[in-house]
């Protein structure tokens, strides 16, 4: 397989992976966009989703696609609990408080998961057909992940544009005082947005297991948190739609740059892809802090 074929196949995988990355970041951007809180404990919620998919499949044989709905429900509940117990008291607090609090929440969830489920690395085998690409192959579960992620993003989009509640959220983002005057209960909108953001994150945890059904463990979220930060910034940090598109860009960037970096002798190209990713993050923050796709709000 020549260089170009490899590049092409990597880009295809990059798009598939990017769809999951995108959804995994939408929750982060939604929460920041509405509440101005960076959820540093992001990865822990994602991990809950991965475990949900694993347990539902292992115990009840539930297909991971169905688990997405369960995950959304679990995520909503978890989001409301977290909001009313902690986050509510931190609205408008300095970054120091919110960053630390969300980190603490994430840590607590991880340790609790370790206590309940143990430190084992788990996984499940959901057999799906695959498409052969000559020397490699794409399994259908990855395509399901892509489709599911697009559907969820689209439904969310419609919800924001068409429903009253969705419009209320947008109103709060645009003008908090104005919304209050119009009789919108701002705290409730915050609660809903936070819960929705967490639900999306938990659901994306399920999708991640569709992509990689192994290596599920209490500390798996950390890597995704870091990636989500980069992607969120690419997408403008405040916009879930921006984040969704940016996921694709990041997937392409990650996989594409691997092939190009492989041309440099005496380096570890895969490790360098992460260097490239974080450098991109810095450049965008400095040149265009509103994100690659412009300051598109929700």
């Amino acid at each position, binding site marked *: *397989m020549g260089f170009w074929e*490899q590049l092409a*196949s*990597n880009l295809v*995988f990059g798009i598939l*992976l990017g769809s999951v990355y995108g959804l995994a970041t939408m929750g982060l951007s939604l929460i920041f966009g509405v509440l101005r809180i960076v959820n540093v404990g992001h990865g822990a919620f994602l991990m809950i989703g991965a475990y949900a998919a694993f347990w539902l499949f292992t115990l009840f044989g539930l297909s991971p696609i169905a688990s997405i709905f369960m995950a959304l429900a679990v995520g909503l509940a978890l989001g409301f609990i977290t909001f009313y117990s902690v986050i509510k008291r931190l609205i408008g607090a300095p970054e120091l408080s919110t960053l630390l609090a969300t980190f603490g929440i994430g840590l607590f969830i991880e*340790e609790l998961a*370790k206590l309940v489920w143990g*430190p*084992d*690395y*788990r*996984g*499940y*085998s959901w*057999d799906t057909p*695959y498409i*052969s690409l000559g*020397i*490699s*192959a*794409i*399994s259908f579960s990855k395509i399901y992940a892509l489709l599911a992620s697009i559907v969820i993003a689209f439904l969310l989009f419609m919800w924001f544009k068409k429903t009253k509640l969705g419009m209320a959220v947008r109103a709060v983002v645009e003008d908090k005082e104005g919304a209050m005057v119009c009789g919108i209960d701002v705290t409730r909108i915050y609660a809903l947005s936070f819960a929705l953001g967490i639900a999306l994150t938990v659901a994306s945890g399920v999708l*991640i297991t569709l*992509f*990689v*059904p*192994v*290596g*599920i*463990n209490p*500390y*798996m979220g*950390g*890597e*995704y948190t870091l*990636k989500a930060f980069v992607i969120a910034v690419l997408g403008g940090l405040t916009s879930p739609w921006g984040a969704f598109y940016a996921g694709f860009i990041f997937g392409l960037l*990650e*996989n594409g740059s*691997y*092939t190009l970096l*492989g041309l440099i002798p005496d380096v*570890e*190209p*895969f*490790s360098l892809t*992460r260097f490239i990713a974080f450098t991109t993050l810095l450049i965008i923050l400095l040149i265009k802090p509103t994100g690659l796709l412009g300051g598109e709000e929700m």
Partner: protein
Amino acid sequence: MRWILLLSILVVALFAGCAQQAEKPKATPAETPAETPAQTPAEKPKPEVVTVVIGAPLSLSGKYAKEGQMSLWGVKAAEKWINEIYGGIKVGNKVYKIEVKYYDDESKKENIPSLVERLITSDKANFLLAPYSSGLTLAGAPIADKYGVIYMSHGGASDRIFEQGYQYVVQTLSPASKYQTAFLDMVKELDPDAKKVAMIYEDNEFAKAVFAGAREHAEKLGLEVVFDKTYPKNPTDLTPILSEMAAKEPDVVIGGGHFADGQLLAQQMAELKINVKAISILVAPALPSFYEALGTKAEGIAAPAQWEIGAAYSPDAAKELGIDWFGPTQDEFLKLFKQFAGSDKQPSYHAAEAAAAILAYAKAIEKAESIDSDAVRNAMNDLDFMTFFGRWKIDPETGKQIGHDMVVIQWQGGEKKIIWPPSAATSKPYYPIPTWEEKDQGKLAVPE
């Protein structure tokens, strides 16, 4: 609200302080000063019983939590065997009983020095187990060396630890450079046509040491390393590097690093349908969770292991080699292990190597007829014996393990079998392994 919180913090801190006070006398009962500061006479009925404290910082949380948990159970099993089944270490008119004192180091380096010093000074540890991993082992070594306490590595595989000139650091497990060599020997023996080796592994200190050793060994065997690439910690997708590797059409693949990435490597090779004649992955396949996670996709996948259930190390095997046997037989160890871990748990090699480290201390005390650090360390130089974990012999100069051999395991029909070296094997190697398509059809890698 605020006062309640402040109060509760105070209570926790106080409780912490009190518990610390309360346990101190327990750990250091009626010290006998000067010459034998560490000998602590226990209860009266047997006046000559002396407790030997072995201190162990274990990683019970953080990134080595899994290994740490296994180590703890292994250590407990060995402790129980020495004290109850063996009846303590009898030297002259004294009987030494082992007490293992452990703390959680959270898999973090800055916790190590204070915990090690606490073990030595406050708990009067006579000997130490090093923490898991090479980095943490290095972090505690200066303190152990300062106090002149032997510091036995049961999870620090790096060869570099033993190039630093420490006198009190000793190794129980095989060093990193030996991890993949036995597998390559096996391939060479089974299939003279297999020439092309691909290496794909984690970019970290341990894996790099393993694969530097593997590369050297492969070239010595006349194999060609056609692919040698790393991936960073916690990869989420290996497809780019795997498809690049597939293009080189290797005969065998060796790779891996830790648990999650090892599972990912196997999973994605399966998804991309990259078929090779044999695969050996570091660390991950040695745990039952590997097969639980991957199902039949795990069939035929091999891994290096410091030890595995069924390893043919027995008193008879020791006699054949003309060396001593010490410690529980494998069945005894399994029984003891389950008393601590629960009946549904199987020990991994992390449990066995930690147990072996404790047994090696007991054996060395027996030989030295003393629990003085220098005497025991000297005795270790001449020690050559076998436990259920395998042979134990160190290089007197560096303390590096040279007696122990690694085994190669392979998943066959849902069970981990030892396939190499032939002297330790519990099953024949299945070679070449079934293709992914065959495995999807339900084919198992069970040799007739």
